[in-house]
């Protein structure tokens, strides 16, 4: 095989590889750089903020075919933190999350649809306190890059509002607000 043929074969192979759909990439959520923050109104007056300190899960990203993307998140309900130990213990009790009986909060996506270059709409099932409700939220890609360890990382954020009463958390209504605004900012690496 002469040099011209070798070049032709290699160039064709390279072109074919480039043209093949990129395989979906699986990222693991980095709990250290992921924040799950919520806010709820106290006595119909001011918003009180809290967070969950332990979030883990998997994000599958398929840029060529976003429909094949997915996200699965698992939150340790016991890791709730509101900067007041007594209140945190109260939130862990059966009045709210009942963490002894329901130790995890989960979200499992069922459909991902691209909206524009940096935004996808994610549908899925959110389970809190053993009750599963459908949830649709708009997720924005906040960046891509490499972390100091050289891993590929991806970041995205979403904000949505749920009614806690729909998940059986009805204690203190209406003094403690029913609507809970949740912001999730994820950094995931592979």
């Amino acid at each position, binding site marked *: 095989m002469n040099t011209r043929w070798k070049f032709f074969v290699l160039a064709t192979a390279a072109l074919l590889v480039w043209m093949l759909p990129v395989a979906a990439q699986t990222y693991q959520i980095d709990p250290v750089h992921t924040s799950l923050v919520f806010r709820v109104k106290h006595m119909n007056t001011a918003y009180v903020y809290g967070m969950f300190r332990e979030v883990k899960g998997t994000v599958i990203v398929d840029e060529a075919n976003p429909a094949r993307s997915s996200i699965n998140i698992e939150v340790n309900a016991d890791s709730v933190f509101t900067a007041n130990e007594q209140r945190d213990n109260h939130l862990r009790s059966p009045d709210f999350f009942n963490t002894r*009986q329901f130790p995890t909060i989960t979200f499992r996506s069922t459909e991902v649809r691209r909206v524009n270059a940096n935004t996808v709409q994610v549908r899925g099932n959110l389970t809190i306190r053993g009750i599963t409700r459908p949830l649709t939220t708009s997720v924005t890609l906040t960046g891509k890059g490499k972390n100091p360890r050289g891993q590929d990382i991806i970041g995205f954020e979403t904000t949505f509002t749920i009614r806690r009463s729909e998940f059986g958390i009805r204690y203190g209504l209406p003094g403690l607000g029913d609507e809970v605004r949740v912001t999730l900012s994820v950094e995931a690496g592979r």
Partner: protein
Amino acid sequence: MDFLAQQLLWGAVLPASITLTVLVASWRAWRRDGVSTHWGTPLALSLGYLFAHWRIVGLPLRFPPVDSNEWLFAVAIALGFWGVIEHFACRQSLLGEAGRAVLAVTISWLVLRPLMGTLWQGMSAYIWWLLLALGWWLWWSLQARIASSIPGLPAPLVLSMVAGGGGFVLLWSNSSSLSQLSGAVAAVAGATVPLVLWRREGNIGAGGVAFIAGLLGFIWVNAIAFVPVPVWRIAMLAVASLTPCVALLPALKQKPGWNIVVMCAIATAILLSAVMVPTYRAYVASAGAYGY
């Protein structure tokens, strides 16, 4: 109406009114030939409590129940009917003991099952389940015996006081809903007191005690397993409820009835304060400025 007043109205005043209304109707309290107890007593107590439960934590979302709070609602219905059975079978003490044992073991198993294999592993899961069921059954049966030996005011008064004081202990142990539900038990048990005073030889009977003690015991099982409330606090509440036994002391047997009632109330208050004071101190020490 402010938050606290609203909670008191829905969780105590109206439930007590419902119970009292049904009691007055079933005892025919306005008539000379009215009765001094009735099988409707546990149903009146159950109706009042169920109203409070609905207002405090809402109606259950699922059946069969999954959540520990949902179980409380279902168990309150079951205990209403069990109280009717105990009313008619009050002379069959073996039936009462066996029935309470079956209920305590079965309900505990159903409610505590989600914790077995997760929170409690291996043999410890079975030990927790059996200890809680046994404790519940023993206390429940003791209350039945006390009520049958010392009829009249002591049983409902002391049970109401213990449920009310226990409500504060639960509140200071991180469970407002169980605290309020305990308060609801106090309210409906307290609603029987004026009627017991009004009717000559009135008493809430085996059925009433079956409901109040059964439900209060179950609230305590929930508090230990799910909040968790330290076991010693619940044990102290259980001890505080045994004060009607002072009526059995030989030195007091000749005393007038109201003397015994006052002594029971004072002894109960002292024993309750022995658990409420340290619980409150621990709460204040760790609560900071929380205050719910």
